[in-house]
Protein backbone atom coordinates (compact mmCIF):
# COMPACT_ATOMS: atom_id res chain seq x y z
CA UNK A 1 0.00 0.00 0.00
CA UNK A 2 2.72 2.40 1.10
CA UNK A 3 4.64 1.46 -2.01
CA UNK A 4 1.63 2.25 -4.17
CA UNK A 5 1.27 5.69 -2.65
CA UNK A 6 4.94 6.32 -3.19
CA UNK A 7 4.68 5.26 -6.85
CA UNK A 8 1.68 7.53 -7.36
CA UNK A 9 3.45 10.41 -5.65
CA UNK A 10 6.56 9.90 -7.76
CA UNK A 11 4.45 9.70 -10.88
CA UNK A 12 2.64 12.91 -9.95
CA UNK A 13 5.94 14.67 -9.35
CA UNK A 14 7.28 13.40 -12.66
CA UNK A 15 4.20 14.76 -14.44
CA UNK A 16 4.55 18.11 -12.71
CA UNK A 17 8.13 18.50 -13.80
CA UNK A 18 7.99 17.02 -17.26
CA UNK A 19 7.12 19.31 -20.11
CA UNK A 20 3.68 18.98 -21.50
CA UNK A 21 3.61 17.61 -25.03
CA UNK A 22 1.26 19.25 -27.48
CA UNK A 23 0.78 19.42 -31.22
CA UNK A 24 0.88 23.18 -31.68
CA UNK A 25 0.49 24.36 -35.27
CA UNK A 26 2.69 27.26 -36.27
CA UNK A 27 2.53 28.95 -39.65
CA UNK A 28 5.28 28.14 -42.12
CA UNK A 29 7.19 30.93 -43.79
CA UNK A 30 5.04 33.32 -45.78
CA UNK A 31 5.22 33.18 -49.57
CA UNK A 32 5.69 36.94 -49.62
CA UNK A 33 7.94 37.43 -46.62
CA UNK A 34 7.95 40.66 -44.74
CA UNK A 35 10.94 42.95 -44.64
CA UNK A 36 11.84 46.24 -43.05
CA UNK A 37 13.99 49.15 -44.16
CA UNK A 38 14.84 52.20 -42.16
CA UNK A 39 16.84 55.38 -42.44
CA UNK A 40 19.56 55.85 -41.33
CA UNK A 41 20.10 52.42 -42.87
CA UNK A 42 22.99 51.32 -40.67
CA UNK A 43 21.91 48.80 -38.04
CA UNK A 44 24.34 50.50 -35.68
CA UNK A 45 22.22 53.65 -35.63
CA UNK A 46 19.11 53.28 -33.47
CA UNK A 47 17.99 56.87 -33.85
CA UNK A 48 15.77 56.33 -36.90
CA UNK A 49 13.88 58.94 -38.88
CA UNK A 50 11.75 56.62 -40.97
CA UNK A 51 10.99 52.92 -41.18
CA UNK A 52 8.95 50.92 -43.67
CA UNK A 53 7.58 47.44 -43.04
CA UNK A 54 6.23 45.68 -46.11
CA UNK A 55 5.76 42.27 -47.67
CA UNK A 56 7.72 41.07 -50.67
CA UNK A 57 5.80 39.29 -53.41
CA UNK A 58 7.89 37.81 -56.20
CA UNK A 59 7.31 37.97 -59.95
CA UNK A 60 7.62 34.20 -60.52
CA UNK A 61 7.39 34.74 -64.25
CA UNK A 62 4.40 37.03 -63.99
CA UNK A 63 4.05 40.49 -65.46
CA UNK A 64 4.33 43.46 -63.11
CA UNK A 65 1.63 45.30 -65.06
CA UNK A 66 -0.79 42.55 -64.06
CA UNK A 67 0.33 42.32 -60.45
CA UNK A 68 0.24 46.07 -59.92
CA UNK A 69 -2.06 47.37 -62.67
CA UNK A 70 -1.84 50.98 -63.78
CA UNK A 71 -4.48 53.32 -62.42
CA UNK A 72 -5.55 51.08 -59.54
CA UNK A 73 -4.80 51.28 -55.84
CA UNK A 74 -2.13 48.74 -55.02
CA UNK A 75 -1.37 47.46 -51.53
CA UNK A 76 2.30 48.05 -52.29
CA UNK A 77 3.48 44.65 -51.25
CA UNK A 78 1.38 41.74 -50.10
CA UNK A 79 -0.65 40.65 -47.11
CA UNK A 80 -1.00 43.50 -44.63
CA UNK A 81 -0.76 46.96 -46.20
CA UNK A 82 2.75 48.40 -46.15
CA UNK A 83 3.33 50.54 -43.08
CA UNK A 84 5.57 53.59 -42.83
CA UNK A 85 6.54 55.24 -39.56
CA UNK A 86 8.08 58.70 -39.31
CA UNK A 87 9.80 59.35 -35.99
CA UNK A 88 10.15 63.02 -36.88
CA UNK A 89 8.10 65.46 -38.95
CA UNK A 90 9.22 65.14 -42.57
CA UNK A 91 8.60 66.45 -46.06
CA UNK A 92 7.34 63.45 -47.99
CA UNK A 93 7.41 63.90 -51.75
CA UNK A 94 7.23 67.64 -51.22
CA UNK A 95 4.42 67.63 -48.68
CA UNK A 96 4.64 68.11 -44.94
CA UNK A 97 3.80 65.01 -42.92
CA UNK A 98 3.72 64.78 -39.14
CA UNK A 99 5.61 62.14 -37.24
CA UNK A 100 3.42 59.07 -36.93
CA UNK A 101 2.47 55.77 -38.42
CA UNK A 102 0.68 55.47 -41.76
CA UNK A 103 -0.37 52.84 -44.25
CA UNK A 104 1.28 53.27 -47.62
CA UNK A 105 -0.57 52.64 -50.86
CA UNK A 106 0.37 53.38 -54.44
CA UNK A 107 -1.36 53.84 -57.78
CA UNK A 108 1.05 52.64 -60.49
CA UNK A 109 1.26 54.52 -63.75
CA UNK A 110 3.65 55.01 -66.61
CA UNK A 111 5.73 58.11 -65.98
CA UNK A 112 4.93 58.46 -62.31
CA UNK A 113 3.19 56.66 -59.51
CA UNK A 114 0.85 58.20 -56.99
CA UNK A 115 1.96 57.44 -53.46
CA UNK A 116 -0.62 57.68 -50.73
CA UNK A 117 -0.20 57.90 -46.99
CA UNK A 118 -3.33 56.86 -45.16
CA UNK A 119 -4.37 56.82 -41.52
CA UNK A 120 -5.83 53.32 -41.98
CA UNK A 121 -4.14 50.97 -39.52
CA UNK A 122 -3.57 47.24 -39.54
CA UNK A 123 -5.55 46.72 -42.72
CA UNK A 124 -5.14 43.78 -45.03
CA UNK A 125 -4.26 44.75 -48.57
CA UNK A 126 -5.97 47.66 -50.27
CA UNK A 127 -9.46 46.17 -50.09
CA UNK A 128 -10.43 48.47 -47.25
CA UNK A 129 -8.79 51.55 -48.69
CA UNK A 130 -10.86 54.69 -48.17
CA UNK A 131 -9.87 57.94 -49.82
CA UNK A 132 -11.27 59.80 -46.80
CA UNK A 133 -8.38 58.42 -44.75
CA UNK A 134 -5.73 59.92 -47.05
CA UNK A 135 -3.16 62.13 -45.39
CA UNK A 136 -1.27 63.05 -48.56
CA UNK A 137 -1.04 61.99 -52.17
CA UNK A 138 2.31 62.66 -53.80
CA UNK A 139 4.07 61.69 -57.01
CA UNK A 140 6.96 59.28 -57.34
CA UNK A 141 9.16 59.39 -60.41
CA UNK A 142 9.49 56.24 -62.50
CA UNK A 143 12.84 55.07 -63.82
CA UNK A 144 13.98 51.85 -65.35
CA UNK A 145 16.09 49.17 -63.72
CA UNK A 146 18.72 47.45 -65.83
CA UNK A 147 18.35 44.27 -63.83
CA UNK A 148 14.99 42.67 -63.25
CA UNK A 149 14.06 42.80 -59.58
CA UNK A 150 12.41 39.50 -58.69
CA UNK A 151 11.10 40.36 -55.23
CA UNK A 152 9.33 43.67 -54.65
CA UNK A 153 11.83 45.80 -52.80
CA UNK A 154 12.08 49.09 -50.95
CA UNK A 155 15.29 50.84 -49.97
CA UNK A 156 16.48 54.20 -48.74
CA UNK A 157 19.50 55.75 -50.40
CA UNK A 158 22.02 57.81 -48.47
CA UNK A 159 19.94 60.97 -48.97
CA UNK A 160 16.82 59.32 -47.46
CA UNK A 161 15.11 59.09 -50.87
CA UNK A 162 12.78 56.11 -50.94
CA UNK A 163 13.10 53.75 -53.91
CA UNK A 164 10.64 50.99 -54.70
CA UNK A 165 11.69 48.41 -57.23
CA UNK A 166 9.92 45.53 -58.90
CA UNK A 167 10.45 44.01 -62.31
CA UNK A 168 12.24 46.69 -64.30
CA UNK A 169 10.42 49.54 -62.62
CA UNK A 170 11.86 51.81 -59.99
CA UNK A 171 9.77 54.48 -58.30
CA UNK A 172 11.64 57.16 -56.39
CA UNK A 173 10.45 59.72 -53.91
CA UNK A 174 12.21 62.36 -51.86
CA UNK A 175 11.93 62.46 -48.10
CA UNK A 176 13.48 65.36 -46.24
Amino acid at each position, binding site marked *: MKKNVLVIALFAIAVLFSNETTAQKFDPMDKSPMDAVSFPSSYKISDKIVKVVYSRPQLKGRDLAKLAPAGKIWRTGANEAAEITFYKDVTFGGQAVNAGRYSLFTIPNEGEWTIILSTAK*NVWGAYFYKQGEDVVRVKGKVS*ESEDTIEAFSMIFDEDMNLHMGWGNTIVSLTIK
Partner: protein
Amino acid sequence: MKKKLILTALIVVAGLFSNETTAQKFRGIDKSPADIAMYSTKEDGAIAKIIYSRPQLNGRDMAKLAPAGKVWRLGANESTEVRFYKDVTFGGKPVKAGTYTMYAIPGDSEWTIILNKALHTWGSGSYKEANDLVRVTGKVSTNKDSVEALAIMFSKTGDMLIGWANTVVTVPVK
Protein backbone atom coordinates in the same frame (compact mmCIF):
# COMPACT_ATOMS: atom_id res chain seq x y z
CA MET B 1 26.66 74.50 -87.09
CA LYS B 2 22.93 75.00 -86.86
CA LYS B 3 22.41 71.31 -87.55
CA LYS B 4 24.75 70.43 -84.74
CA LEU B 5 22.87 72.67 -82.35
CA ILE B 6 19.55 71.12 -83.28
CA LEU B 7 21.03 67.67 -82.86
CA THR B 8 22.39 68.55 -79.47
CA ALA B 9 19.07 70.06 -78.45
CA LEU B 10 17.25 66.94 -79.59
CA ILE B 11 19.56 64.70 -77.60
CA VAL B 12 19.07 66.86 -74.51
CA VAL B 13 15.29 66.77 -74.95
CA ALA B 14 15.33 63.01 -75.50
CA GLY B 15 17.42 62.69 -72.36
CA LEU B 16 14.87 64.70 -70.41
CA PHE B 17 11.91 62.60 -71.47
CA SER B 18 13.36 59.12 -71.46
CA ASN B 19 13.21 57.28 -68.17
CA GLU B 20 16.45 57.45 -66.38
CA THR B 21 18.19 54.10 -66.12
CA THR B 22 19.78 53.53 -62.77
CA ALA B 23 21.48 50.65 -61.09
CA GLN B 24 19.88 51.00 -57.69
CA LYS B 25 20.90 48.09 -55.49
CA PHE B 26 17.84 46.29 -54.22
CA ARG B 27 18.31 43.37 -51.87
CA GLY B 28 17.02 39.83 -52.35
CA ILE B 29 14.78 38.10 -49.85
CA ASP B 30 16.41 37.89 -46.44
CA LYS B 31 17.62 34.49 -45.23
CA SER B 32 15.61 35.04 -42.07
CA PRO B 33 12.57 36.83 -43.44
CA ALA B 34 10.47 38.96 -41.15
CA ASP B 35 6.93 38.06 -40.22
CA ILE B 36 4.10 39.43 -38.16
CA ALA B 37 2.05 38.05 -35.29
CA MET B 38 -1.16 39.91 -34.66
CA TYR B 39 -3.49 39.61 -31.71
CA SER B 40 -6.86 41.24 -32.18
CA THR B 41 -10.40 40.47 -31.11
CA LYS B 42 -13.72 41.63 -32.49
CA GLU B 43 -14.52 43.44 -29.23
CA ASP B 44 -11.19 45.16 -28.66
CA GLY B 45 -9.68 45.44 -32.15
CA ALA B 46 -5.89 45.32 -32.33
CA ILE B 47 -4.30 44.43 -28.99
CA ALA B 48 -0.76 43.40 -29.86
CA LYS B 49 1.46 43.09 -32.90
CA ILE B 50 4.87 41.46 -33.06
CA ILE B 51 7.36 41.93 -35.88
CA TYR B 52 10.18 39.43 -35.83
CA SER B 53 12.60 37.69 -38.15
CA ARG B 54 12.42 33.96 -38.72
CA PRO B 55 15.71 32.06 -38.63
CA GLN B 56 15.49 28.43 -39.71
CA LEU B 57 17.07 25.38 -38.12
CA ASN B 58 18.68 24.19 -41.40
CA GLY B 59 19.70 21.01 -39.62
CA ARG B 60 21.18 22.82 -36.64
CA ASP B 61 20.43 22.28 -32.98
CA MET B 62 18.19 24.88 -31.40
CA ALA B 63 20.09 24.61 -28.11
CA LYS B 64 23.10 25.99 -29.96
CA LEU B 65 21.20 28.72 -31.76
CA ALA B 66 19.40 29.87 -28.64
CA PRO B 67 21.56 28.64 -25.74
CA ALA B 68 20.03 28.26 -22.30
CA GLY B 69 20.84 30.96 -19.78
CA LYS B 70 21.87 33.60 -22.32
CA VAL B 71 19.97 36.61 -23.62
CA TRP B 72 18.77 35.72 -27.10
CA ARG B 73 17.42 38.13 -29.70
CA LEU B 74 14.32 35.96 -30.19
CA GLY B 75 14.62 36.19 -33.95
CA ALA B 76 17.28 37.53 -36.29
CA ASN B 77 18.44 40.84 -37.75
CA GLU B 78 16.64 43.82 -36.22
CA SER B 79 15.47 43.28 -32.67
CA THR B 80 12.08 41.70 -32.34
CA GLU B 81 9.50 44.40 -31.75
CA VAL B 82 6.19 44.16 -29.94
CA ARG B 83 3.57 46.87 -29.98
CA PHE B 84 0.70 46.93 -27.51
CA TYR B 85 -2.23 49.05 -28.63
CA LYS B 86 -3.73 48.96 -25.14
CA ASP B 87 -2.48 48.53 -21.59
CA VAL B 88 -2.14 44.77 -21.07
CA THR B 89 -1.07 42.19 -18.56
CA PHE B 90 1.94 40.46 -20.08
CA GLY B 91 2.94 37.24 -18.36
CA GLY B 92 1.17 38.47 -15.24
CA LYS B 93 2.76 41.92 -15.19
CA PRO B 94 1.10 45.18 -16.19
CA VAL B 95 2.53 46.77 -19.34
CA LYS B 96 1.47 50.12 -20.77
CA ALA B 97 0.45 50.53 -24.38
CA GLY B 98 3.56 51.23 -26.44
CA THR B 99 6.35 49.72 -28.50
CA TYR B 100 9.09 47.61 -26.98
CA THR B 101 11.82 45.24 -28.08
CA MET B 102 11.58 41.65 -26.91
CA TYR B 103 14.32 39.23 -25.90
CA ALA B 104 14.38 35.81 -24.32
CA ILE B 105 16.60 33.81 -22.01
CA PRO B 106 15.92 30.17 -22.92
CA GLY B 107 15.75 27.54 -20.19
CA ASP B 108 14.70 23.92 -19.80
CA SER B 109 11.29 24.27 -18.19
CA GLU B 110 10.73 27.98 -18.51
CA TRP B 111 12.09 30.90 -20.46
CA THR B 112 12.55 34.45 -19.28
CA ILE B 113 10.87 36.85 -21.68
CA ILE B 114 12.14 40.42 -21.56
CA LEU B 115 10.49 43.60 -22.74
CA ASN B 116 13.05 46.33 -23.25
CA LYS B 117 12.64 50.02 -23.96
CA ALA B 118 15.52 50.52 -26.44
CA LEU B 119 14.05 50.49 -29.95
CA HIS B 120 15.61 49.94 -33.38
CA THR B 121 18.49 47.91 -32.05
CA TRP B 122 20.13 45.03 -33.86
CA GLY B 123 20.38 41.53 -32.45
CA SER B 124 21.20 40.85 -28.82
CA GLY B 125 24.65 42.46 -28.93
CA SER B 126 23.18 45.87 -28.20
CA TYR B 127 20.90 44.62 -25.43
CA LYS B 128 21.24 46.50 -22.13
CA GLU B 129 19.55 45.22 -19.00
CA ALA B 130 19.23 48.80 -17.73
CA ASN B 131 16.60 49.41 -20.42
CA ASP B 132 14.40 46.50 -19.32
CA LEU B 133 10.76 47.24 -18.73
CA VAL B 134 9.72 43.82 -17.36
CA ARG B 135 10.96 40.27 -17.19
CA VAL B 136 8.35 37.55 -17.08
CA THR B 137 8.47 33.79 -17.34
CA GLY B 138 7.03 31.67 -20.12
CA LYS B 139 6.21 28.02 -19.59
CA VAL B 140 7.93 25.50 -21.83
CA SER B 141 6.05 22.63 -23.42
CA THR B 142 7.08 20.11 -26.05
CA ASN B 143 5.73 20.14 -29.56
CA LYS B 144 5.24 16.79 -31.26
CA ASP B 145 6.06 18.33 -34.62
CA SER B 146 9.34 20.12 -35.15
CA VAL B 147 8.99 23.75 -36.27
CA GLU B 148 11.67 24.61 -38.86
CA ALA B 149 11.35 28.41 -38.86
CA LEU B 150 11.10 30.27 -35.56
CA ALA B 151 7.44 31.21 -35.15
CA ILE B 152 5.59 33.56 -32.86
CA MET B 153 1.80 33.56 -32.76
CA PHE B 154 -1.14 34.33 -30.54
CA SER B 155 -3.69 31.73 -29.56
CA LYS B 156 -7.36 32.66 -29.66
CA THR B 157 -7.28 33.25 -25.92
CA GLY B 158 -4.37 35.65 -26.23
CA ASP B 159 -1.48 33.43 -25.21
CA MET B 160 1.71 34.43 -26.97
CA LEU B 161 3.28 31.23 -28.28
CA ILE B 162 6.90 30.96 -29.36
CA GLY B 163 7.71 27.85 -31.35
CA TRP B 164 11.00 26.55 -32.65
CA ALA B 165 12.18 22.96 -33.11
CA ASN B 166 10.17 20.98 -30.54
CA THR B 167 9.96 23.79 -28.01
CA VAL B 168 6.86 25.85 -27.33
CA VAL B 169 6.96 28.74 -24.89
CA THR B 170 3.69 30.20 -23.66
CA VAL B 171 3.19 33.67 -22.19
CA PRO B 172 -0.36 34.76 -21.39
CA VAL B 173 -1.40 38.24 -22.58
CA LYS B 174 -4.58 39.78 -21.20
